């Protein structure tokens, strides 16, 4: 079986190089570019948590932005009303994302195929409506503003470079958690569920429980990413947990190649680049470019950025499975199978 989230030594070198480059970035980037890079990290963590659901487990969620937004609101509210001390609001955000994912996930993971898509869409809409209506906590459609800067050792983190490092550290921790989950035996079982859930159930795996657990884990990390969003832009609006955000996160995952965490991060960087850098230069016609990007990606890059490399490296593995005399089973389409 091909390990989709493989981390061979060469990959390790890449990882270390990327981490060093990311850590050194604010030293040679202009403040505006650093801010954009911070946004990419925030969105990248959201996309990576979604990749764990979509790519690894085969649960294509259209409502993942809900947990991101819940985390953002929780962190913003906590920082505003209780304490703006460094890691506290992020912990609150992760806990809130996880709790809401736990409360909604048990309904979602019961659905299969397109029903999962629609149900997660519905969950996203409910949470979006709640954010829009619950004025006393979320500030309604104006959003939650006036979130204080995060305090570290009694000093507010106001320098964009320091803020970037703070976000980078949290991003690294979040990504490490996702990576460990994907690499663990549990992650292997999740990939089994992705490929053939009935067989995994027949082998004795409690697949519903596994899917529920990964839904909660992904929700927790999405909540952490939301906390980072609140920390960085110090404003949370209902847009942040709306359908557009969820769709963009999904686009990032698909661009990156479903199943690849680093691919999702690269996809997220590209999406943010298009939305925040290209978008304003097009008189607010960013959605047009994003729509075209959706169409192009679906047609031209069925396996995403990660797929471009994987397809070359995968040949021997494909030969192996042919050699056992048993034709490799047709990969089950995402959430496919018994839809009627």
């Amino acid at each position, binding site marked *: 079986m091909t390990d989709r989230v493989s981390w061979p030594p060469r990959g390790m070198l890449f990882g270390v190089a990327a981490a060093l480059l990311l850590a050194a970035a604010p030293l040679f980037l202009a403040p505006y570019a650093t801010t954009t890079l911070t946004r990419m990290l925030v969105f990248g963590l959201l996309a990576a948590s979604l990749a764990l659901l*979509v790519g690894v487990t085969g649960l*294509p969620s*259209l409502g993942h932005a809900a947990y991101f937004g819940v985390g953002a609101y929780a962190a913003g509210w906590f920082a505003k009303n209780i304490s703006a001390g460094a890691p506290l609001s992020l912990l609150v955000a992760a806990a809130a994302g996880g709790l809401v994912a736990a409360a909604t996930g048990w*309904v979602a993971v*019961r*659905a*299969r*195929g*397109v*029903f999962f*898509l*629609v*149900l997660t*869409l*519905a*969950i996203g*809409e*409910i949470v979006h*409506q*709640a954010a829009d*209506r619950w004025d006393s906590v979320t500030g309604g459609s104006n959003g939650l503003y006036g979130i204080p800067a995060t305090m570290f050792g009694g000093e507010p983190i106001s320098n964009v470079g320091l803020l970037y490092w703070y976000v980078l550290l949290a991003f690294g921790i979040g990504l490490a958690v996702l990576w460990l989950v994907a690499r663990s035996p549990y992650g292997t079982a999740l990939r089994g569920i992705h490929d053939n859930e009935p067989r995994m159930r027949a082998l004795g795996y409690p697949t519903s429980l596994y899917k529920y657990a990964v839904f909660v884990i992904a929700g927790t990390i999405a909540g952490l990413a939301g906390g980072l969003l609140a920390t960085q832009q110090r404003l949370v609006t209902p847009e942040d947990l709306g*359908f557009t955000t969820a*769709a963009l996160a*999904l*686009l990032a995952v*698909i661009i990156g190649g479903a199943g690849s965490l680093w691919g999702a991060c690269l996809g997220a960087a590209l999406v943010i680049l298009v939305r925040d850098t290209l978008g304003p230069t097009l008189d607010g*016609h960013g*959605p*047009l470019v*994003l*729509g*075209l*990007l*959706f*169409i192009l*990606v*679906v*047609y031209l890059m*069925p396996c995403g950025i990660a797929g471009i490399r994987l397809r070359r490296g995968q040949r021997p593995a494909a030969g192996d499975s042919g050699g056992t005399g048993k034709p490799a089973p047709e990969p089950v*389409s*995402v*959430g*496919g199978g018994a*839809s*009627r």
Partner: protein
Amino acid sequence: MSAWFDANLVSILNGAAIGCLLFILAIGLSLVFGMMDVLNLAHGAIFLGGAYVGWKVGGAAPTWASFLLALGVAVLLGLVAGGVLSAMTEPLRNRSHLDQALLTLGIALVVAELLSMAFGNDVRGVNAPPGLDGSVSVFGNAYPTYRLMLIGVGAVLAAGMWLLVSRTMIGAVIRGTVADREMISAIGIDNRKVKLAVFAAGSALAAVAGVLGGPIYGARPGLDATVLILALVVVVIGGLGSVRGALVGALIIGQIESLGRALFADAASFVLFGALAIVLVLRPQGLFAGATR
């Protein structure tokens, strides 16, 4: 009870009118969804296109001639749009639902953006055609004539669709394709053509719903997403590929949208999606899955 009924009669009628509109919108979505497993997220954009056609061709205060002309143009545009969508999703027939959803989502974004570039961001209100723009008395409550007419049109269309799908040869092919696509192609019917026809007809109905909905919703950016989500909920509650399911689902959602909003004001969307969650938990395939009548 009768006092309650009196107080909420207008909401109930509104719900029926919205339900009829939703049925016209959702039936195409449901058939394409049920037959070809294509999740068409561009359906709402076609509705919005129809709404703008109603405003542009029919005018803000349409005469009967211009209103009917707008309906005709909407049907044509809908047929073309459905054909294009069918052709665009064809290369993805063996890919996952997610890929198809993303493709149609991309199309929806592009279409919505082009519409907002062409028509601006204002709400384009449309009047009902003359004769229907007044109101009549229903059990002592003044009620807009146009909405009553909409309920009538919805009922006629529902009956027509039911006859078409359950009593004709075309309907037999459609039901057969919903039930077993491979078997239908094995008996020599090209299911790409079936898909093209259903896609085109469904999109034409969506565009017609847009024109008909003009006097209620107007045409404005963002309307596409609102109606798409309602239509998806209708389809999922009713069950994929079922005419009866789409009708019952549309009437339920219409009542939740109208009566629910009147009774619970802020909680209506929770009621809406709560109903969806309950249906999916109790009957994961929808209320009328498999029963294509």
